[in-house]
């Protein structure tokens, strides 16, 4: 399988970006849920420190992924799609990328506003994006949570679309993002 994309399928690098981000999103939800109900203590700090580090990792991966995407050919959508299906696919993909970047950015800003700076796995500390401000923090936390729900909704749409391609249209749109598949 080729590293680069072809007009027929996604290359190894694009697939790796896709599935690593999927795995990290599952990690993110798990860490956030585990930390959510805890009182401020060592365990909460440690879970949230990991949540922040993974979030920054996702942000970097998304930027690299978009750069890689723009430097490659991308397998086009099948010709038989209706115009509204094309629009829906395009909207979903743009929304996914925007949300994948907006989630870590709003989390990072939230940490800055709270006065709990972000360290990337203890290796280095990121600069604060906004000044410490409790009202701003409350607003950003709400935004971060709302964006998470919007992201879940768009992911659901994305998965539904992929499954529809596979089972209804019976085309290779899903398969070309799966490793170890040939056609």
């Amino acid at each position: 399988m080729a590293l680069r994309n072809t007009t027929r399928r996604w290359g190894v690098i694009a697939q790796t970006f896709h599935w690593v981000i999927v795995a990290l999103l599952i990690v993110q939800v798990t860490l956030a849920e585990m930390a959510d109900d805890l009182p401020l203590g060592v365990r909460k700090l440690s879970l949230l420190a990991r949540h922040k580090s993974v979030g920054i990792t996702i942000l970097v991966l998304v930027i690299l992924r978009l750069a890689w995407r723009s430097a490659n050919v991308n397998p086009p959508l099948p010709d038989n799609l209706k115009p509204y299906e094309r629009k829906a696919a395009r909207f979903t993909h743009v929304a996914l990328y925007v949300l994948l970047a907006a989630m870590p950015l709003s989390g990072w800003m939230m940490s800055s506003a709270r006065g709990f700076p972000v360290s990337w796995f203890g290796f280095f500390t990121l600069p604060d994006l906004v000044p410490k401000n409790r009202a701003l923090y409350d607003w950003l936390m709400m935004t971060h949570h709302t964006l998470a729900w919007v992201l879940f909704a768009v992911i659901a749409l994305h998965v539904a679309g992929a499954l529809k391609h596979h089972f209804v249209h019976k085309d290779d749109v899903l398969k070309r993002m799966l490793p170890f598949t040939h056609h």
Partner: protein
Amino acid sequence: MRYARLCLALAAALFAAATMAAAPPPAAAPAAAPAATAAGSHFVVDPAKSSLQFTFEQAGAASTGRFPRFGVTLDFPGADPAGGRLEVTVEVAALDTGDKDRDDTLKSDDLFAVKKFPEARFSAQQIVKTASGYEAAGKLTIRGVTRDARVPFTFREAAEGGVTAGYMAGKTLVRRLDFGVGQGEWKATDQAGNDVTVSFTLRLTRAAH
């Protein structure tokens, strides 16, 4: 791909908006000329123009808090602090890290235990001149535990419209666990570091004994 660039541009715009919202740090330094000193001086802190801060590591990142209420007296017999005495009392319960949850946690029994130990104290009976300024050697008491401590500082006097002011600044490293600040789960240092840097910038004014 056009829309990959669109996504990048949107993400970059979000990032730029976030970055621009960050305020530049304020910078201010008091300027004053050194002045001649009479023998035997008693200085007390000017709280409005003094700050006592602590910097600690939380989850791998440095965070800062301050003690807004404290008292300082500096007495010395000659032309400078060498041979003098320094007394510092800090109202620990007034600590402020800018986050109520964190402040409450710091004040709790496992950390500063402010109900039982409302005050921290540094009492130095010996001040010596060093290459870069002075060093006060004395007893530091935090959370009821007293240990020997050395605090280096700089000091200069300035005549300010009939008032003799003294500017004192320095910082010292305190290991919180040496004083029992961190019981139970807080004995671990991976999320809350053991090393705490205490720094001070003080304006003192000369007072009658």
